[in-house]
């Protein structure tokens, strides 16, 4: 009996499109990047097995800078600029992990207890992939190139947990 229940629990999820919430997050990221002055476009689709993917591309030449997908219930993030692909069941943890593994994305001073809203982390990840992808820096206005105003202050991207009272969010975005 218990073996049957276990087998049922382990059954892989049926492929399905991004949820409305997931799509809303992607589009909020796109909007944040555009407001920051980056020329970015997005695209999405389903594979022939019905599994979803989502990409952010440079608008001027349509080159893909970062690819998100969900394959067999696992999330996947791949960006040529990071020379690698990361997969996992927890999307937010995956984004966080990718940023941790690429400290150039967000310098983390020792003892820093500053935390970011997950949406803000996604913006950091995509922006960095975009800027690292090459010509974007030249194509983007100065405010994007300097990391200023990457929209932490709007779109509800406020940090949660551990933020010191009165601390400005932009602190960790500036080099």
């Amino acid at each position: 009996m218990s073996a049957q229940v276990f087998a049922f629990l382990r059954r892989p999820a049926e492929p399905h499109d991004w949820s409305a919430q997931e799509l809303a997050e992607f589009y909020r990221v796109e909007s944040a990047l555009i407001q920051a002055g980056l020329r970015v476009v997005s695209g999405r689709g389903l594979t022939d097995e019905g599994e979803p993917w989502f990409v952010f591309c440079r608008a001027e030449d349509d080159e893909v800078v970062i690819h998100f997908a969900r394959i067999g219930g696992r999330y996947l993030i791949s960006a040529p600029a990071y020379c690698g692909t990361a997969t996992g069941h927890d999307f937010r943890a995956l984004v966080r992990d990718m940023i941790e593994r690429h400290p150039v994305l967000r310098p983390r001073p020792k003892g820093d207890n500053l935390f970011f809203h997950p949406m803000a982390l996604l913006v950091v990840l995509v922006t960095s992939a975009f800027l690292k992808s090459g010509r974007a820096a030249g194509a983007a206005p100065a405010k994007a190139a300097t990391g200023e105003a990457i929209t932490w202050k709007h779109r509800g991207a406020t940090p949660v947990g551990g933020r010191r009272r009165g601390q400005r969010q932009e602190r960790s975005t500036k080099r």
Partner: protein
Amino acid sequence: MYGNPQRLNHTNVQDLRREGGRWLKERRERLGLSQRQLAERVGAEYYTFISQLETGRGRIPPDRYNDWARALEMRSRDFVRELLRYYDPITHSILFEQDARSEGARRR
């Protein structure tokens, strides 16, 4: 990334990529391959990349052209020639269309 800045506007680039994606899909389907099978043949790390290309987003890296040609059972030069039509129309036109036009004129 493989940049190839041409003086095409974004709509033109997107239209060409979409057309190229349709061509790739048609070739794959003609061989009865799923996107996952094609991904395995070309050594793509994740098969959603195939779907992405077939939708007209991004492009096949030049260092994979030979793998793709083999996977789609084409001669590399024929594969690249067709792909250039969508990825690099200016070069394609100079190399092939102008040649074909002058050849036609010479024959007349």
